[in-house]
Each structure stands twice: as C-alpha cells, then as structure tokens.
C-alpha cells in the first residue's frame, strides 16, 4: 500500500501543520516546550482513544460513553485509597484497575443481559459511576503521593513519563491487533458478527473483553490524570467524551467496524491539543476556537475517508 493510502497519514499531517503554524508565530521560539506539552496532554487522549478504538472496531452501534465517569471514579477512588501516603502508588494503580474492570463488566452485563444498545447502556451506567464518585469524594481534594505526582509530571530521556506509558500501551494494543488470535477475532467480529460466529469465533467473549479493555484504559488514564493534575476533580473526565471518539475517527479507524488504526490515534491526539494551542496563540476567543476546532475536525475526517475509498 502506498504511503498516501495510509489512513493514519492525515492525522499526522494535520498535527504537523498545526505545530508548524503555531511555531511560525513565535518564529521558532518555544517549539520544544510546545512539543513537550502536546505529548503530555496528548497521552491522556491517546490512552482513552485506544480503548474507544477497540470498541468502535466491534462495528456500528458499539461505543463506550462511560469513559469520563470511569476516569473520574478511578481517579477519585485511587487517590482516596492512597490518601497521599508515600509508597502506595502501586496499590492505587490496583484500585484504579479494579474500578476499570468493575465498570467494564457492569457495562457489558447491561448490554448482554438486558440487550440494551451500548450507547444507552454505557451512558446510563456512567450516571451511576459519576454518582459513586461524588458520594465518595464529598468535595475533598486529596493530593496524590509525592512520588507518584513527580512521576506523572516528570520526564525520562526528555519525553514525558505519561507519554511513555501511553506509548507502551499502544505497542501492546498494536501487537494484540496485528499478531494475536484475539485481535483477529475482534477484527472479524467487527466486519460481520454473524459470519464471525459461524466461523467459530467466540463473539460474546470478544465483545466482553473489549468492553472491559476500554474501561481499564479509561481507568489508567483517570489515575494518571489525577496524579498529573495534583488531585481528582469531579469534572476531570468531561472533555474526554468527545475527545475519545474524535481521535479514533480522525485517526482513520473505520466507524463501520473491523479496521483499527493505532498510529492514527496518536496523530489525532497530538492534533487535538495542537489545534487548540494554535488557535490560542493566534488570539481566537473561546467561541471562535470551538467553531474552528469543529470545522477542522470535519475537514480532516472528510480528507481521511475520501482517500480511503479506492482500496
């Protein structure tokens, strides 16, 4: 396949263009800082985006809208469990992973047992998760343990630690999709669920694992974000509802299912941060910024999807 047909190309081109335009304004000053900030903030979008990508790959109608609530709940409960005590970082991660596992299983139980459409099931369940977070938080702002906060805001080899975690998770997902039996099953189920079932694919197990994977990824993102920003907040996940879906679509993953794209999610995550910084540095007000962001997203999606038609 030629380079121009790679569906991830467009999100990376868009990210590079936004980067270049921003840096052009400052005549090259601050380029390093901008790249560093994009990698830090982009990492959170990429982690939740990878999970959402797996669910969207399951085919039309599959989406997880409980990502923001899961992030909030996992950040809140993990920080509460750690209570700012040193040496509790791994225990906190364990709590976050359990939250992800729990919400994923609950989501899939609603989808499978009650036959609810995923969009309704995850949205309704997220109200419960958000309520749990409010109830356990009670307005407290608990600081993360110092060591964990240092890790989340720190860097290794000049790259933000959160971006390295995101990169590790991306490689894991890429390997699963491209090389593992489970990945093949997921891609087959997304193309034609009935045909996959008749070919011997355990489709319900694949769907369950996927709905658990997305919330586990959201929980990891929530844990890291709470540590990064010095404490959990009840609205900390809000912007990741649209973000998780936008980075998947801009990244070139097929909304029709059956085709995933890991590098595209990263390009799109960087782009989503960079486009806002670009509009900021050109002095656009909040209203203009949102309108332009929306228009740019639509443009990229059109470019990416029309390029892909002649396969």
């Amino acid at each position: 396949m030629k380079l121009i047909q790679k569906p991830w190309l467009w999100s990376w081109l868009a990210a590079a263009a936004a980067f270049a335009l921003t840096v052009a304004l400052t005549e090259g000053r601050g380029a390093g800082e901008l790249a560093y900030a994009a990698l830090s903030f982009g990492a959170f979008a990429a982690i939740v985006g990878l999970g959402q990508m797996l669910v969207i790959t399951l085919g039309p109608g599959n989406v997880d809208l409980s990502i923001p609530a899961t992030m909030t709940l996992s950040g809140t409960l993990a920080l509460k469990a750690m209570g700012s005590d040193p040496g509790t970082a791994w225990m906190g991660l364990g709590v976050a992973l359990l939250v992800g596992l729990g919400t994923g299983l609950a989501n899939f139980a609603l989808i499978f047992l009650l036959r609810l459409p995923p969009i309704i099931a995850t949205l309704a369940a997220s109200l419960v998760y958000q309520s749990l977070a409010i109830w356990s938080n009670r307005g407290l702002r608990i600081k993360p343990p110092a060591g964990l906060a240092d890790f989340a805001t720190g860097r290794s080899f000049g790259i933000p630690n959160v971006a390295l975690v995101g990169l590790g998770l991306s490689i894991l997902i890429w390997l699963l999709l491209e090389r593992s039996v489970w990945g093949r099953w997921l891609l087959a189920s997304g193309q034609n669920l009935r045909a996959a079932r008749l070919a011997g694919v355990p489709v319900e197990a694949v769907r369950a694992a996927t709905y658990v994977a997305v919330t586990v990824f959201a929980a990891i993102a929530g844990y890291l974000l709470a540590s990064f920003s010095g404490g959990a907040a009840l609205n900390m996940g809000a912007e990741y509802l649209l973000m998780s879906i936008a980075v998947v679509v801009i990244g070139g993953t097929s909304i029709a299912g059956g085709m995933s794209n890991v590098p595209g999610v990263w390009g799109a995550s960087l782009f989503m941060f960079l486009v806002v910084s670009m509009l900021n540095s050109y002095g656009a007000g909040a209203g203009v910024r949102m309108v332009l962001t929306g228009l740019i997203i639509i443009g990229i999606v059109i470019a990416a999807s029309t390029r892909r038609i002649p396969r």
Partner: protein
Amino acid sequence: MSTAAPLAAPIVALTEAAKHFGPVRALDGVSLSIFPGDCLGLVGHNGAGKSTLVNVVNGGLAPTSGSVAFPASGAATALAAGVRSVFQELSLCPNLTVAENLRISHSALKGMNWRAPARAEIRAALDRVFPGHGIDADAPVDTLSIAQRQMVEIAIGFAPRGTEARLVILDEPTSSLDAGIADQLLTHIKRFCAGGGAVIFISHMLGEIFEVATRILVMKDGKVVAEKPAGGFTRQGLVDAMGHVATEAAAAQAARLPGDEVVRTPEGLRARRGEIVGLSGLAGHGQAEALARIYLGATSSWRSPREAGMVFVAGDRGRDGVLPLWSILRNASISILPQIARRGMVDRTREAEIVAEWKKRIGIRTEDVTNPILSLSGGNQQKVLFARALASAAPVVVMDDPMRGVDVGTKQDVYAMIRAEAAKGRIFLWYSTETEEVCQCDRVFVFRNGEISAELTGDAINEERILEASFEMEGA
C-alpha cells in the same frame, strides 16, 4: 452470427467489446448480437468473464475498447433500451418492502400515493412469473426467505416499470430456487421470448440451459470459445467446450461400514460417522434453520476450543460467510487460528503454509492470497469458504446450500473432496436445493413446513421420492 430472424434489428450489438482491469483481460474482444425472441444461454467457469460481459451489456461497465449499441430501439443507454439485469448476489434493500424495492428502479412512480401503483405492479409481475407465489407486496424484504427474495428480484426484472423489458439478463437465477419454482421461471422465460423479448440466461445447471436456451454461448478466459444453436451441443460437448476435464460422477462410492451415531437432534435428524447426510425439500421449509440450530447448539459464543467440533460452510456468502475487509488468506484461516496459535499469537508461517496448500487443493484462482477476498469471483469466494471449513479438523461439517454460483467443474472437485473426507470419518450435513447434489448423499431427510417429512436411504434417494415427500398433502 445471424441465427435469429434476419429482418429484425438486434436489441443489443457488441462489436469487439473488451474490458481490461489493469493487466487482467476480463473481457477480451467479444462480438455478439441479441435479437428479439432470442434466449441466449451463457456458460463458463467462474472467472470466465460472464459477469463482465453482462455488465458491459447492461451499461454497468464501459468497455475499454469496442462498442455496445442498441439498434432495435436506437437508444443510447442500456436503461433506455429496456435492458434489465437480475443478479445472483441479491441487490434488494432488506429494510424496505417488496413494493418499495420496485420503486428504486422505477423512477416514473411519483406523487403522494406512489405506493398503490407500485403494489399493483409488483403483484401483477409476481403473479405472471410465479403463479401462487404467496408473497405479500407490503412485506419487508428482510422477512422473506432467500428464495422469495430471488423471486421478487426476478419479478422486478420482468416488470414493465414505465417502459417495457426487452432484454432481461438472469445471472444464476435458479440457484436458490427449488425445482417447482425454477420450472415456473423457465416457463415464463419461454413465454417472454415467444412474445418478442430476449433473455440472457446464465446458469451452472446445464439441464436448465438446454431446456430454455435457443442459442448457447460458451466463454473461457474472457473470450467466446463456442456459439451454436442449443441443439448443436451435447451435455458432454458443452462441458468439454468450457475446458474442464469433467470426471464422471464417481459411482465407485466406497462401501463404508456405518459408524457411531454422532449427531442426533430432537426433530429426528441423525448422522453416523463417515456419513453424508442431505437435507432436502422445497426451499425455505426449515432446512437452513435446522442447520443453524445444530451448529449454534454445538458451538459456543463464549469459548473456542483448540479443536473445533463442528464447522459451517455458508451459502449466503455476504450474510454468513465473507469477511469483506480481509484478504483471502485471513478469510481462509479464521477458523483454524486456535489450532495454529502459540501462546495466543498467530503463527503466521504455518498460517501461510496451510492456506497455500488449500489454495492448490481446492483451486482458488488468484495470484496472491494476500489479495482482498472481494477481488475474487463469487464461485472462488465460495471455494475460500470451503477451504476455511475443511482446513479444520472438525469431525462434523455443516453446509448450508454451499454450491450456489459454483461452476460445474469445481462442483465435481468439491464432491470428490467431500467423499474423500467422509471416507476418513467426517460427517457432512448438507442442505441443497439441487436434487443432483442430494442424490450424492448416504441418507436424506426431506423437510416440509419446518419438519422432517421423510427419511430416505440408499436406492430410495431419487428425485421422485424427494418430490413426493416435499409435496405430500399439499397438492391435494
């Protein structure tokens, strides 16, 4: 090529028409005239260029070189010249009703109350072609059986739709119809041609070709290799012209000892080790549902054992078989992944070896198995689905009318392969709408209204007994 009435102008005239897809010469210079009253039988292997020829005639593809003209009507386009096509891959919109589907190709229906004339027209067309069809014009298409959908599609092809059908192209129209309905269609074709219409009839069932065709055209590798009046061919001569060494249906069926009973269902279907068990009867009488119940009951949506106990060969490729975004390789290997995996990862070398071996054994026509599955013709896609099932070690193979759109030569190869696999102890549960295939079985269950109405074995398996069991109590 002046076989029909010399006075009339041809409905369609092709002059050295060719169509190339990159280096592939799908149609390699064909000249052909079709006159009113002609019924042209078109035969050839999968990938011989039949579908391309049809698409050039109906305007779906523009020829790379040569020309297509419509002298009788003087029209510029196939649509205006009254050329209609009925495809083997069903092209109805499943969420719309029968009458609404007629509207899609009938743009003259306008205004607030277009549904009433649409209903009347499709009803009349169905009554004309398939008397006693029992299809409701207001039924959504997805509630119809596959045979009923095919009937609707054929009726739409012959419906006047504001003008008049002059040339109707039927691509494998009978492959999902049972014998009674197929006869109604053949009768209608003869009537239609006698009334000055023309038909291009594509079928892998040579008996039907000989019954309706006035002329037979044999294609191979994009060229017309033989064209004669139907009387000028014998069955064997036709098969030879297609260029396949047809092995006479091997009568030497190894005498097998009946093995242990492995399959048994509440409705009374039984199968022993090494048996080929047929499910027969009129199309849509519960055979496909019975197979789906057996398969879904024997396998799980939650776990996939290393050695599958049962595999499924789909007949409705688009709905039940093909994974459209994938390559031939990945489509063929999906059912054997747990078998060849190491620690959950696919062993890609073994995967490629196994698929390469099956490509050779079953003769999938492609240069490279990493090509997309949709680059193959329908019959070759079907071979991939066979390879998918047979490559596994599963002791039971369930086949849901799998020979639709498969050419005569391949059918013989697959029959032989099925017999060889059965001799090794595999069980085949085989639903087929073709009596010829059912007669290959060791034991046949005839279905009527969702229930088994007869069980036939040995010499009792013949067309007469099957028809008898299919219709009992109905005609009286």
